[in-house]
């Protein structure tokens, strides 16, 4: 039962990253590449009717984490207190930036909210990458000092950074060179993803330029992925042991690289959705490969005193997990139906939706 909910949770997170990821990416494109009002309109039209529903995946995944793995929810949310609250603030800024810019037709007003939307999208992409880095690297569970736990074995607290900026220091921080590296991977990957969404959903003049951006950034992304894989060994001596033990898991890295290499053909795609498909594959593969490499750990311990948190020692009781399957199955069918309806009504190009003009 724990395994079922683990797969559900990871799937929901992957869906969240793919869906809200294009919103973040569109925000980054909006920040750096959209100079003309027409381009900005095209971008907000392309995500306007969707961003809210996309964000629900985060809330819903949070809900499933809460109910299926309450100990992990409690431990990680209190331990990552500061970055999580900052993510909340950024989500607020991004949302009001999007929703409010069209409410008043004034240049200063609009440029303030454009920046709020763009900058918070950029920082969110960075933070989500950093978050993944923190989970891979692990934390000092039980806040061990000199070999003695100062808290219960599954609690910890991380400051934003430690003075050495090293992922191997005894007292860790949220930001170190490893987690920031993954943060940058997140920013680059989501920028590509967002650009692909805009190409897919608009007839904007920007699209030709964005194809070049995707193509060039893809080289950067490939380089970053290779560097990340190399330094992974410093964090985790045997990062591939799960893949060696269970060969079918290689499907996840294969998906990742299919997505990555497929994007080099972005300039010759006939269908506008192809780029988006490949960047979705990359995000899905990247996330699943990462969690597969630490499985069954969900939050590794960096000390020898307290054990890792695994999906088995953080889960809720059997009855609750079983009864949840019933309502969850009903809900999934409904959610799928809503998505089909939503994407059918807003199918094709979105240039004329008139988002933000109400």
């Amino acid at each position, binding site marked *: 039962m724990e395994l079922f909910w683990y797969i559900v949770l990871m799937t929901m997170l992957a869906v969240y990253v793919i869906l809200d990821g294009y919103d973040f990416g569109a925000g980054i494109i909006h920040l750096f590449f959209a100079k003309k009002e027409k381009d900005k309109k095209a971008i907000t039209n392309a995500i306007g009717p969707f961003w809210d*529903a996309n964000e629900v995946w985060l809330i819903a995944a*949070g809900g499933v984490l*809460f109910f299926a793995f309450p100990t992990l*929810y409690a431990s990680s949310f209190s331990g990552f*207190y500061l970055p999580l609250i900052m993510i909340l*603030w950024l989500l607020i800024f991004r949302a*009001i930036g999007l929703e*409010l810019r069209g409410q008043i037709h004034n240049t200063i007003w609009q440029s303030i909210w454009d920046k709020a939307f763009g900058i918070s999208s950029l920082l969110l992409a960075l933070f989500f990458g950093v978050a993944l880095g923190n989970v891979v690297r692990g934390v000092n569970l039980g806040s061990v000092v000199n070999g003695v736990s100062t808290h219960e074995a599954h609690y910890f607290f991380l400051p934003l950074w430690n003075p050495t900026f090293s992922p191997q220091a005894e007292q860790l921080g949220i930001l170190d060179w490893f987690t920031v590296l993954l943060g940058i991977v997140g920013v680059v990957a989501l920028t590509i993803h967002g650009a692909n969404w805009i190409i897919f959903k608009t007839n904007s003049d920007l699209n030709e330029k964005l194809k070049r951006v995707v193509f060039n950034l893809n080289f950067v992304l490939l380089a970053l992925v290779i560097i990340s894989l190399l330094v992974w060994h410093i964090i985790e001596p045997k990062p591939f042991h799960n893949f060696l033990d269970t060969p079918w898991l290689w499907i996840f890295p294969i998906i990742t690289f299919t997505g990555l290499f497929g994007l080099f053909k972005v300039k010759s795609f006939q269908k506008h959705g192809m780029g988006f498909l490949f960047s979705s594959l990359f995000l899905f593969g990247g996330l699943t490969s990462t969690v597969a490499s630490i499985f069954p750990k969900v939050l590794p311990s960096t000390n020898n005193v307290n054990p890792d948190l695994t999906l088995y020692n953080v889960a809720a009781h059997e*009855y609750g997990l079983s009864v949840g399957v019933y309502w969850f199955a009903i809900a999934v069918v409904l959610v799928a139906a809503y998505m089909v*309806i939503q994407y059918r009504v807003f199918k094709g190009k979105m240039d004329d939706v008139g988002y933000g003009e109400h």
Partner: protein
Amino acid sequence: MEDMLFYDRMQFAFTITFHYLFPQLTMGLSLMIVYFKGKFLFSKLEKYNDAAKFWMKIFALNFAMGVVTGIPMEFQFGTNWAKFSELTGGIIGQTLAMEGMFSFFLESSFLGLFLFGEKLMGHKLHFLTGFLVFLGSWASGYLIIATHSWMQHPVGYEIIENGRFVLNNFGALFSNPWLLPSYLHNQAASIVTSSFVVAAIGAFYLLNNKHNEFGKLFVKTGVVFGLISSLLVAFPTGDWTAKNVVKHQPATFAAMEGIFETEEGGSEIVLIGQPNMLEKKLDNKIAVPNILSFLTYQEWDAQIKGLNEFDESVHPTNVPGLYYSYHIMVGLGTIFIGLMLIAAVQLFRKKLFKTKWILWSLMFMLPFPYIANTTGWYTAELGRQPWLVYNLLRTADGASPTVSSGNTLFTLLGFIGLYLLLGLLFLMLAGKIINKGPQLNQH
């Protein structure tokens, strides 16, 4: 430790108070928008469609505020109340996860269609999307109050090692006797807010001699919805809710009502007075004898236990706060019924739109349903203190063990600053939409 708990509580109280200013309007307003749109489908009168579209704009703004201030609520269970989440997550996580899956997806998917899809879908489907948004927002309220009810009156659980609460009866979460009365009470109160807002904006237009046709429609609709919902808040839902409190949380009930001493021959109902916690009595009291006993038990001389009979350890933490919250809620609720009754009589006599003082009163009444809803929630929450899970888990034992008070104060200050900005922007933009008014036959 003490100040850590204080900041955790302040942050939750502040963020939830601010958050609930928005859903209380959207839940009631979605019903009224569905009414306007439905009326348009039946009557084919364009003004009803225009009314629906006008309120949709206010709704969209409120909804966005509700969403952005709502996400922190779910996160804060984990960030600030980790121990509580760890111990009870297997139970309250069920209802909270269901809220995400059943209502947020429904609301957010169809809100986009409702706001941007009228041209693409035609009026009937547009009505349907509005109805689904309404359904989603009411489902959300239901699941939140199911969670709330479990904390007030825990059911369907057992406690295993380490003090962990484990669910053993899923159905009990929904057959909880606390749930239905609280839900109906809360939803009726939400319609009170939306009715008063609709009526107030209508009165504003009439007094301004602008958009008169819509002014009349809004005042009329607001008064009809407002009278019905104000009555429903008091009876039967309020009465029913209070009877739950007296049955399951008698010390809370005594503190709410300001009854310190058990009175032989029936308890009086306190209208005004200040709790004196040093001498455990009520100062400057104005009260009507025996009414409380009658309202509670339908017997004039029924005995109601005073607060002083309960051990101090089970007293609500903040008796004066609880007492004032409750009395403000009840006092305002009474005024709402009175005003709406007079307005309805004038409406029936076809004199309402010319009775200036009622229009002025309706306009100035706009903030008060918000205060009544907020103090109503304070009554429920302060009434439960010092417990997170009534009688089983103390608030002091639920906070995050590793988050220091300095960090919580930092984020609390951040939330205060950010929400101040949000509040200002909201008022500015809502003011702009209202000032511009509904557009005739806009397409």
